[in-house]
């Protein structure tokens, strides 16, 4: 019987993979549901097992089954690993994603699974921590704090009870690597958590998954059930969020697991000292924990050999938004932003010029193409006024209105603020109002001249349909009002940045200020000077 591999990743399913799989079953094929390889342009992807290996076809419609089976389908892609998109990657964490049946324990073991855990359990906890330190692994969820140091703190903390918490509250727009890994290779995360548990002496772990990821929740629960004996005495549990973005912040997440409102805690104490239920707690992102099995199995040096500067190893980069080859691309740090967007991403899907890319989710900075020379690395991005965050890259074409995006950032912060600290709670609402006043000073998109030139760029139809005219357009504000409001906005951002308790209020200024700095023409200012010479 012909064996056929079809992804059950949410993206593939949303694009019709279930119907395609059903059609193959009807045609008498044996269908194995895998995760996605991460090039969404070719989903639903069908791979047929042949003597030459798996041959891919995609995208495939349910009515094309016959053509795929007799190898006459026009979307024949050959071996997926040979496609340029995949051939240029270094897949440490996502090596199995797309290849295996996610919850098949034998498949996992046959593809190198559990080697890291077996290595770790043959070592003393301190030795495991030393290996993670030597690998240079830094937190893949945001700020890039060294993972090994965090583990060392928990290992050294006194107490009979410790916890491993996985932050799977991947709420940033433009990021989906956590979801893909949990849906496509859940044992990799489980193994990483079991290694962490051995390294610090924890017996119980929680995976906090956002409720917007029902498929990831179901897959993780099934995988936890099936692997319970393998990871025992370590025990795992899934906790489901309830639609609060701020719970991606580690201390808010701990509060939420404890059954409280997801409000941030002031630090110190660090969660490593007094975390979940007041106990020493390792809290890491999905990608940080999922990187650990490779490090233990292949050695710290193999991991650290890849990367750039102090950013070691690989980063699963997520190419999102208006981009042709959108998807997951795992590569060592150091590749330039332009390479990621233009060469690998293929530019915009709309075919229009790229105007802005937001890196690191809704709290990340917007960069213009003149900054595409930036190497993808924590320090370089920080120096350029941005952050890598969870490595989501959202591409916008030239129809984007950056004043509107800046307003959206403030609006999002206002909607999602936990309310505990004033700069975030009130500052974000004031921020929306100030940006509204700035927009009100601008000539209306349809009647303006001169300064409105930029706002006229792109599609006029889009301007009318997507940007309901602000009510204040009818009441033009005094000359110079825009400028003073921009000063006020910068001042407000400064207050939020340095006065907020957590990253939500503290980082919202990144998208706002970068939009102002790099796209002043959208706020009624002079065109930005190219900064390519930097």
């Amino acid at each position, binding site marked *: 019987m012909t064996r056929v591999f079809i992804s059950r990743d*949410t*993206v593939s*399913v*949303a*694009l019709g993979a279930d119907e395609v799989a059903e059609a193959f079953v009807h045609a008498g094929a044996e269908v194995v549901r895998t995760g996605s390889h991460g090039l*969404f342009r070719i*989903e639903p992807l069908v791979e047929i097992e042949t003597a030459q290996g798996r041959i891919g076809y995609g995208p495939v419609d349910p009515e094309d089954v016959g053509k795929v089976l007799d190898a006459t389908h026009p979307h024949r892609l050959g071996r997926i690993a040979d496609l340029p998109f995949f051939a240029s990657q270094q897949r440490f964490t996502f090596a199995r994603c797309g290849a295996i049946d996610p919850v098949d324990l034998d498949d996992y073991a046959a593809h190198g699974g559990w080697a890291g855990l077996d290595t770790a359990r043959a070592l003393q906890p301190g030795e495991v921590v030393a290996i993670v330190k030597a690998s240079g692994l830094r937190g893949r969820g945001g700020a890039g704090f060294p993972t090994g140091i965090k583990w060392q703190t928990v290992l050294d903390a006194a107490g009979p009870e410790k916890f491993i918490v996985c932050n799977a509250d*991947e*709420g*940033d*727009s*433009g*990021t*989906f690597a*956590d*979801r893909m890994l949990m849906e496509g290779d859940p044992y990799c995360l489980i193994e990483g958590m079991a290694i962490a548990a051995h390294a610090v002496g924890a017996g119980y772990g929680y995976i906090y998954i956002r*409720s*917007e*990821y*029902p498929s990831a929740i179901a897959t993780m629960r099934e995988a936890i059930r099936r692997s319970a004996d393998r990871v025992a005495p370590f025990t795992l549990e899934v*906790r*489901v*969020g*309830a*639609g*609060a*973005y701020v719970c991606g912040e580690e201390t808010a997440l701990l509060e*939420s*697991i*404890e*059954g*409280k*409102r*997801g409000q941030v805690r002031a630090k110190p104490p660090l969660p490593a000292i007094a975390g979940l*239920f007041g106990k020493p707690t390792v809290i890491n992102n999905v990608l940080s924990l999922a990187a650990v099995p490779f490090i233990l199995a292949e050695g710290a040096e193999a991991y650290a050999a890849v990367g750039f500067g102090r950013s070691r190893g690989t980063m699963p980069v*997520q*190419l*999102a*938004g*208006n*981009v042709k080859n*959108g*998807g997951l691309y795992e590569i060592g740090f150091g590749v330039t932003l332009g390479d990621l967007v233009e060469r690998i991403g293929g530019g915009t*899907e709309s075919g229009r010029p790229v105007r802005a890319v*937001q890196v690191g989710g*809704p709290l990340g900075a917007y960069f213009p193409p003149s900054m595409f020379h930036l190497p993808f690395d924590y320090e370089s991005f920080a120096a350029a006024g941005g952050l890598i965050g969870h490595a*989501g890259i*959202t*591409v*916008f*074409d030239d129809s984007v209105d950056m004043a509107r*995006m800046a307003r*959206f950032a403030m609006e*999002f912060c206002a909607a*999602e603020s*936990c309310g505990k600290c004033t700069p975030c709670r009130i500052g974000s609402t004031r921020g929306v109002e100030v940006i509204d006043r700035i927009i009100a000073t601008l000539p209306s998109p349809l009647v303006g001249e001169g300064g409105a030139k930029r706002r006229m760029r792109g599609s006029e139809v*889009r301007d009318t*349909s*997507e940007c*309901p005219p602000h009510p204040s357009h009818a009441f033009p504000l005094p000359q110079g009002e825009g400028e003073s409001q921009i000063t006020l906005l910068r001042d407000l951002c400064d207050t939020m940045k340095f006065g907020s308790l957590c990253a939500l209020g503290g980082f919202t200024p990144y998208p706002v200020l970068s939009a102002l700095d790099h796209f002043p023409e959208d706020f009624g200012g002079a065109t930005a000077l190219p900064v390519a010479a930097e």
Partner: protein
Amino acid sequence: MGASAYLDAIRRLMPRETDTRGALLPLLHGLQEEFGYIDDALVPHVAEALNLSRADVHGVVTFYHDFRRRPPARHIVRLCRAESCQARGGNAIEQAAIERLGTSMGGTRADGEVALEAVYCIGLCATGPNAIINGKIVSRLDGPKLDRLLEQVTA
């Protein structure tokens, strides 16, 4: 709904291990799944079952976007409003849905049948604009596709 139905449900949905810590969110999820929303009348029973104050439970129910305090509309259309979907024409889809359904974002149609809600990212950021329509995730929305889907919902 009578108090006894609530007490039954709470007993049934309570995490099996009595020492399970932080049981409030799992319990509320379970109750919402069962009743469709968290009735204010449930709050004192939940508080008592978990040895919390009513204010604690009320605070949690009202903090999280997922928990509803009223019965939901029969059909729920959730549109992604986040940046990646905006970059792919999400704003036009949002406007079209608002016009088509005759309700605002966050509102329910006059007949109470269809609600239009915002969601901020469902993790399909390269194939947007995305929506969750009655629990089913749909990707690469355009005008005609949206029309077809809403027709099924509003028929």
